[in-house]
């Protein structure tokens, strides 16, 4: 073995030991999760703790004539019953929403959706609390309700929000009707209309991204404990953004922020459901402040599905204009957004429709216009980003369905049409017609790799044969090929356009190296299962050469973690991941000075080598990071502060734009409407890959949720505003049996502005997956002239498509 091989081998061994970026490091959190040793809010048991439960409205819209709590209060074990009348003097019967609206904590004069919170019973145990809810007598006068958002702004529509009836200026401009929330527009309307007026070919379709729910396995819950002597509140809860919750609690309760301790322990999935603030949190806090003992609130499954934030409910009239040879010239979209009874959408404050304006997708569309009208209906409020960046699933669904419809109209292959219109690699950074600057991308390479791997040409040939066989009556199965080429926009975001309640959407990391060379690092984000404890440690390991196993990552305690905006919208890696790298680099810079002092050379004479600084040209003269750490506490250079730690608050210069090419092959039994996914191939480009195994896990999870949304998951209401199927009996949560097999793949186009080039991946598979499934279904029926088929594509709806086409004689 020559010297160079030896050096290389030694370096490889040291690198391997670090378990840094690019390595399939096993998830450290799984040690506790797979043994049932996670610690969740509901695991918390405090001395004297009481339990709360809600009295909920059976009506979708009704006036409350009276509330009588006397029978409930008389039940042994009941400690208190709160109603709006109790909260009003404290100014807490309404709370602010992230979208600039207010939301009832407990209904005062009216209820506006079924299962709305009307009273909060606090009792010695969970069972008594539940019994007592049945003893609260509420007299209602039912009112006509609005279920169909298209009827919200009718002249004779019942006015839902009497509390803001006269406030015709909303948080996002003028309101056109008492049931109107906002109108948000972007793009050049005149220019767009002009292109459409003169276009060779246009398509127009109302695309519905129906109402569904993120449904994390752990429901929303909190424990509030107020110490009357110290005047301090500790609040444990299922919070994706604990610091924001602390600020909100301070603002609405008047307690000083330093006397509020918010702790988010292990979280059993969030998917956007745990971003907002809920009545249960507020009531547990008020209960504890009033009673001076801890109060726990735990939502049950039906409450979770029917009251805490839903997702989607976007009704998107989508148009494309193109030349006859398939060059897309313009896009025009109008969205009617059903926000339910309160605008509790979780978006950055200036973005009432989230980042819906990413709807021009992966295509170079020179001209576009988007208008979104938000309206109130008698449904639960929300509009959260369910495993996606803000309204990005909706946007991608619109464009990816629309290009298919255009391909159909042009008689062109849907893959070919996409390639023809892709933004070209040399066009990046690319300014879109609706205002974004895409940081990077190489769509052609990704698409080609995907098409080659899936065998696109052969699949189309097989499909052509199957169609003929179907027409001849030889088979009752039809085959669909779904394509989706998506561009996500994640990592909110730059302070110039992103804030939450006025706080810029930076994020943070604080890293401390201990004298013995082990590390604790804390971030302003909060994992809900994404594996932050594993991946942040890998970033630090690579940056400063300390093995990931010697690095502890901690999140979720607002007393110890630096302020951050939390985890959603795939922002942890793009924002806090960047902060982590920058903080680590500050440490490395100081370490270099210490090493230079120790080795008695000039800093510039040192070079970094995996886990050490060595003297250029003298590789045997080095100091490892561990030795440097000890020196930092023991003998720092003269005039240097001892210690080795750093904090970074990172404000991203731009969003990141992950993308991907997805293909789905589906076989549908026309007689039952049952669709079987034969293959699903997902190529993701999320820039630099920190942990390929975690990426794959995220892709599997996101695709599974995409499959659910496209193929059956929904929150439906009947005409009286009764919420239907809000339990796991009906709400489609696929098991391992229904879930297709996933084939994953990747390309790597690093983000040019991110310190490590990473873009975020948790949500891409969901965003790209939903239209891919829907396109497969639509493609299957296209040759029969079905036209656009709305989601969800559950069996009975697909059977109905066949019925209308006369396939069941």
């Amino acid at each position, binding site marked *: 073995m020559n010297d160079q091989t030896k050096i290389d081998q030694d370096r490889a061994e040291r690198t391997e030991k670090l378990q840094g970026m690019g390595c399939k490091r096993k998830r450290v959190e799984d040690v506790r999760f797979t043994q049932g040793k996670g610690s969740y809010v509901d695991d918390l048991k405090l001395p004297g703790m009481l339990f709360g439960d809600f009295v909920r409205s059976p009506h979708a819209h009704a006036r409350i004539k009276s509330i009588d709590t006397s029978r409930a209060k008389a039940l042994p074990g009941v400690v208190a019953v709160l109603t709006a009348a109790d909260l009003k003097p404290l100014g807490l019967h309404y709370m602010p929403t992230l979208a600039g609206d207010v939301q009832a904590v407990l209904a005062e004069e009216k209820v506006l959706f079924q299962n709305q919170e009307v009273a909060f019973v606090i009792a010695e145990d*969970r069972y008594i609390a539940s*019994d007592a809810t049945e003893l609260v007598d509420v007299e209602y006068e039912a009112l006509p309700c609005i279920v169909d958002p298209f009827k919200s702004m009718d002249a004779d529509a019942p006015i839902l929000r009497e509390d803001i009836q006269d406030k015709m200026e909303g948080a996002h401009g003028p309101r056109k009707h008492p049931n109107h929330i906002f109108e948000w527009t972007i793009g050049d309307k005149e220019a767009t209309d002009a292109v459409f007026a003169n276009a060779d070919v246009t398509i127009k379709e109302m695309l519905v991204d129906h109402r569904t729910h993120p449904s994390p396995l752990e429901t929303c819950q909190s424990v509030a404990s107020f110490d009357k002597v110290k005047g301090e509140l500790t609040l444990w809860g299922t919070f994706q953004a604990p610091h924001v919750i602390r600020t909100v609690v301070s603002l609405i309760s008047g307690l000083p922020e330093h006397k509020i301790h918010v702790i988010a322990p292990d979280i059993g999935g969030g998917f956007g459901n745990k971003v907002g603030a809920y009545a249960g949190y507020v009531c547990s806090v008020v209960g504890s402040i009033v009673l001076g003992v801890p109060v726990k609130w735990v939502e049950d*499954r039906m409450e979770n599905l029917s009251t805490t934030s839903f997702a989607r409910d976007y009704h998107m009239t989508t148009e494309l204009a193109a030349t006859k040879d398939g060059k897309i010239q313009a896009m025009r979209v109008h969205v009617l957004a059903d926000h339910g009874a309160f605008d509790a959408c979780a978006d950055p404050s200036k973005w009432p429709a989230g980042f819906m304006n990413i709807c021009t997708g992966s295509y170079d569309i020179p001209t576009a216009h988007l208008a979104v009208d938000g309206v109130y209906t008698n449904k639960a409020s929300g509009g959260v980003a369910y495993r996606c960046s803000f309204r990005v699933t909706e946007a991608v669904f619109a464009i990816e369905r629309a290009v298919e419809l255009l391909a159909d109209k042009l008689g062109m292959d849907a893959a070919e049409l996409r390639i023809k219109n892709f933004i070209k690699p040399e066009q990046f950074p690319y300014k879109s017609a609706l205002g974004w600057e895409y940081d990077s991308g190489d769509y052609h390479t990704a698409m080609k790799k995907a098409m080659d791997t899936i065998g696109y040409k052969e699949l189309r040939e097989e499909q052509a044969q199957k169609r003929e066989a179907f027409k001849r009556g030889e088979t009752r199965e039809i085959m669909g090929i779904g394509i989706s080429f998506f561009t996500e926009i994640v990592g909110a975001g730059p302070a110039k356009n992103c804030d939450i309640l006025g706080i810029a959407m930076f994020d943070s990391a604080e890293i401390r190296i201990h004298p013995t060379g082990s590390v604790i690092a804390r971030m302003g984000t909060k994992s809900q299962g994404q594996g932050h404890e594993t991946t942040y440690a890998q970033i630090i390991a690579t940056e400063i050469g300390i093995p990931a196993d010697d690095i502890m990552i901690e999140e979720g305690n607002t007393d110890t973690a630096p302020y951050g905006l939390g985890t959603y919208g795939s922002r942890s890696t793009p924002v806090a991941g960047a902060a982590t790298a920058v903080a680590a680099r500050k440490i490395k810079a100081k370490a270099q000075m210490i090493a230079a002092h120790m080795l008695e050379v000039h800093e510039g004479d040192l070079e970094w080598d995996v886990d050490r600084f060595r003297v250029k040209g003298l590789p045997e003269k080095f100091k490892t990071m561990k030795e440097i750490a000890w020196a930092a506490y023991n003998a720092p250079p003269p005039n240097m502060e001892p210690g080795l730690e750093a904090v970074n608050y990172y404000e991203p210069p731009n969003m990141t734009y992950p993308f991907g090419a997805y293909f789905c092959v589906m076989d549908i039994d026309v007689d039952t409407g049952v669709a079987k996914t034969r293959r699903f191939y997902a190529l993701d480009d999320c820039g630099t890959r920190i942990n390929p195994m975690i990426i794959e896990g995220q892709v599997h999870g996101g695709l599974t949720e995409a499959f659910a949304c496209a193929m059956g998951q929904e929150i439906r209401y009947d005409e009286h505003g009764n919420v239907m*199927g809000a339990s796991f009996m009906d709400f489609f949560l696929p098991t391992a*049996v229904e879930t297709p097999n996933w084939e994953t793949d990747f390309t790597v186009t690093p983000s040019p502005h991110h310190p490590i080039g990473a873009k975020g991946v948790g949500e891409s598979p969901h965003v790209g997956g939903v239209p891919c499934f829907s396109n497969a279904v639509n493609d299957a029926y296209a040759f029969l002239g079905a036209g656009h088929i709305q989601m969800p594509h559950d*069996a*009975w709806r697909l059977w*109905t498509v066949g019925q209308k086409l006369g396939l069941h004689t």
Partner: protein
Amino acid sequence: MIPGTFDYHRPATVEDAVGLLSRLGEEANILAGGHSLIPLMKTRLASPEHLVDLSGIGNLKGISVEGGDVIIGAMTTQHELINSDELARHLPIIAETSRLIADPQIRYKGTFGGNVANGDPGNDMPALMMCLGASYSVTGPDGSREIAARDFYQGAYFTSLEHGEILTAVRIPIPSPDHGYAYEKLKRKVGDYATAAAAVVITMEGGKCTSASIGLTNVSETPLWASEAASMLVGTSLDKASVDAAVAAAEAITEPASDMRGPAEYRTKMAGVMMRRALERAQSRAKG
């Protein structure tokens, strides 16, 4: 999802259980595997004050052959039905159906007796028991009696059982060894009740159907025995025209609810599709 208060009793004999039930009156309910009753209690659609658990009674479990019948004890679990050699030999359709009930965890606890006694049209065993011509052995304060499965189901959650009566066993006549069978169930996912399902048992001789029995699950207030449809098949070669006519006759007796599984029209048609597919499979399995 939090049940109301109840007292729990665990008698050791059928006599004690019957005694307890009559003493405690209408507010007492029998508890077997709990996988239908407890969800109802958690949603407070049922709030019994007393639960009389049958799991402490030894002789309610087990599968045996008596003359030309198979006898299945009420407390035999759905899981045990899948692993029984006796059933595999004489009545393989029972294991086939059991595998389509819920999921493994539920089948470990859920009982055969609970499934047939529950009275939910969504349960899979009742239509199969009607198809097979089973009879239920019942013991109550006034002694024991037998009730034919085909007479047992009166409405949703409403059966011929009087309060205080316990279903102790089910007696099923063993079909000809040459019979063909199939249970076809359409469901949205694992663990779901049927959108529609059909149980079919036939015998064939020289290419002609010599006997047929058809049960339908979850397409009416009660499980259905499609006797007319079945009799239309006897004597035919199960040719398309005969099957079409029988399917139409079976569809005609359905009266499903519209729910999240689909509108009534769909569920009726799916009963027909399931019956057609079950017939095809049964025919392929029938000897003779």
